[in-house]
């Protein structure tokens, strides 16, 4: 078990490094840099910027150093938790992220929680009678929810409830308080609900059809015990699903954030890539990658603890329940 953990941890670190290097490479190699953008930031003003001014700008922010050196410098500083200053406004990157992150975090976590609150019981109930009416209806609704692009759903909800019916405010801020978050959360929750309900249904149904479950029923176990066992045996894929849904928590809700004018981390990341603001991109990427890798690591460890077979298999991933 210890060797397993260490191997996994080493793999996690390598992954982090790989992600950062890849992102660094992508953003620096992409055409255009922060200097060229700042020169044209006035939109289309007919004011020219001399090459000397651009060169000075680049020198000021170290954009003219070799790529490898910039990467190493950044990594070294990042280890000491110094994420530098944004190329867009000169403010500390950590401060910008700290302002944007809570919104995204809160939005996604609450949406996920709501989705699970409704989705898990729904999935379990559907799984208990496969092919039954609840199963068919919930399957239909979930597929329908999944098939709608989130930005369309969000925009429609906004226009109907805030623009026409006026039951929710158009913007979320200190004045409107929590009510401003109702619609974005609902939009995201509906999208995640489809995923969660389907997932739960599939895992539980498979577990219930398992020989072990049949044996349990033959022994006279009632439904609660059945469900408990099914959930426990599904723990591996559940953990995997959790790990898969995690990236969304940091940067996945950009479309919804844009539609509802919420200044979140998703929008910050997109804007930073468009502006070639490398320090901000790297810091957000690191954050997102750390969360993903940590969640994945946790999922693997949890699975290993619950199902010793996985430790014995050589780095094999949880394979699900039924062949």
């Amino acid at each position: 078990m210890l060797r397993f953990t260490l191997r996994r941890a080493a793999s996690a670190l390598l992954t982090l490094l790989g992600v950062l290097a890849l992102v660094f490479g992508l953003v620096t190699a992409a055409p255009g840099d922060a200097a060229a953008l700042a020169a044209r930031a006035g939109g289309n003003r007919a004011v020219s910027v001399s090459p000397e001014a651009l060169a000075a700008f680049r020198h000021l922010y170290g954009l003219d150093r070799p790529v490898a050196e910039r990467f190493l410098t950044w990594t070294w500083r990042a280890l000491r938790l110094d994420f530098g200053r944004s190329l867009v406004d000169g403010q500390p990157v950590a401060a910008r992220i700290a302002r944007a992150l809570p919104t995204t975090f809160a939005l996604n976590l609450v949406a996920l929680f709501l989705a699970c609150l409704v989705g898990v019981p729904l999935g379990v109930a559907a799984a208990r009678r496969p092919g039954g009416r609840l199963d068919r209806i919930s399957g239909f609704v979930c597929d329908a929810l999944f098939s709608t692009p989130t930005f369309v759903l969000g925009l429609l909800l906004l226009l109907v409830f805030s623009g026409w019916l006026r039951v929710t405010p158009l913007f979320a801020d200190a004045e409107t308080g929590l009510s401003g978050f109702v619609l974005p959360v609902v939009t995201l929750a509906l999208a995640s609900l489809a995923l969660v309900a389907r997932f739960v249904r599939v895992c539980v149904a498979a577990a219930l059809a398992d020989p072990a479950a049949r044996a349990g029923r033959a022994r006279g176990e009632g439904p609660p015990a059945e469900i408990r066992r099914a959930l426990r045996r599904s723990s591996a894929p559940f953990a995997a699903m959790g790990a898969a849904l995690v990236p969304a928590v940091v940067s996945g809700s950009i479309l919804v954030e844009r539609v509802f004018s919420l200044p979140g981390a998703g929008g910050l990341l997109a804007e930073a890539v468009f502006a070639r603001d490398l320090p901000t991109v790297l810091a957000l990427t690191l954050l997102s990658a750390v969360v993903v890798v940590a969640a994945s690591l946790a999922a693997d460890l949890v699975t290993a603890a619950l199902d010793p077979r996985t430790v014995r298999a050589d780095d094999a991933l949880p394979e699900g329940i039924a062949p």
Partner: protein
Amino acid sequence: MKKLALLAAAILLSACGVRGKSQDSVVRRRLEGEPKTLNPILATTDFEQIVLALLERNLLDYDEKLNLVPGLAEEVEGSPDHLVYTIRLRKDARWEDGTPVTSADVVFTLTTLLDPKAPALTRRALFDGFVKAEAVDARTARVVFKSAAAGRRDAFNLPLLSAAAWAGGDVATHLRNRNPLANGPYRLGSWEAGRTLTLVRNTQYFGEKPAPEQVIFRVVPETAPAFAALGTGDIDEMRLTAAQKKELDARAGTAGVPRVVTFDELSYIYFGWNNRLPVFADRRVRRALTMLVDRESIGRNLYGGLAKLANGPLPPAHWAWNASLAPWPYDPRAAEALLDEAGFRKGPDGIRRAGKVRLAFALSLGMGSDIQRQIVELAQQSYRKAGIDMAIQPLEWAAFAAKMDAGECEAWAAALNLDPNPDLAVSWHSGQVPPTGLNSAFYRNPEVDALLDRLKTTFDREATRTLLARVQALIHEDEPVTFLNVPLTKWGISSRLTNVRTSPYGLFLFWPGAAGWRTSATTGPIS
């Protein structure tokens, strides 16, 4: 049942967010993006300028008619040889903390502006030839240049940095960039990053107290939610699309409906052609490209009738606009004749070619403007019918900027916003090709070059007008780019606001601009 409860809860929750201040004293405005900095020297984007216009006065301001009028400076006097400018500040100009605005601030501002280490990219060009700035006494400063330039006075449409507030530390990363010291009618109250910026009255301001006590800026990137907010009264002003204007026009006359304000601005949209390429070298081809676009239809339909035809490098709102130049007509037959004459005949695939050169190219387009995209798609169709193959390449801004700076764009579509007294040389002089200047079309006409050189040292207004007229005529003949339309800007203004005045420089960047807005006695959001 559960749904009703949820709905009731939502209504209750939203009722809790009741606005504190009375409606009268607050103006709610919209920003299309978030300001990155409130340092008046470093600010580049429109939304930064809009906010700063209420916080900082300039040495000289533009009035409604774009004349330079006193601002922080009572007077800016140029020496007869146009090399030395003497600035006399107002006695009563003060910063929001009560300290006076002094010549030390002027010197500090100019030194910072021209410091190669400070990223003040866009304002520097106007101070080309700067030698030094010195304080003569507390109220007077002297700025010395080594060369005379005709547009020099416009350089003093310049805000100031407080030497005391911005001392100590790097200007680029100074904390004051997020909390500037104001000398204008308002000062910064609070800034909820990414959401709202609140300005409150500056009690130390030397001029007339503005009517609204507070101005709240809100960042709303998407136009549909912003328009909904204009309707509910959550915001009081926004830029309108043609469709939105149509809707407001339809509801005009009903009480409480926002009104539409339209005005000319110093801008135009155009297709840029890289004159170095064989396909664009012949001016007959370029003229044909202009004549194949139905610009009147574009103005009528895409701009709701609110656009004029552009006929050259200056728009009609400019004081020296040459009205005698007839815009090239929309005439596909004549255009095709021109193309034939230039040697481009239709090949078997329907695309014209002259020998080995196919009349095919890629047009780069920056993201963000729906209308530009539509015009480009329109042109693509017209060109295809005439045997021209134009591919459209949408690019994000960084990539677009990089390509333009490297002079690598074959063709591009863009809008150009001009300053009140623009220096045409930057865009049309053959010495100003990328990366030095903005002549991305690589236009070269020795006569135009000579005229532009002469303009630099022509200080007489009438002489300038004559020279500019000739420059416009020459460029019109050569048509190095296709000048498309001069759109009128459309703005939606809440019925609560009065005394909203316009200028060719927009609603906000002249004096008094938004500082002169007043709220009427009507109360409450529009129902």
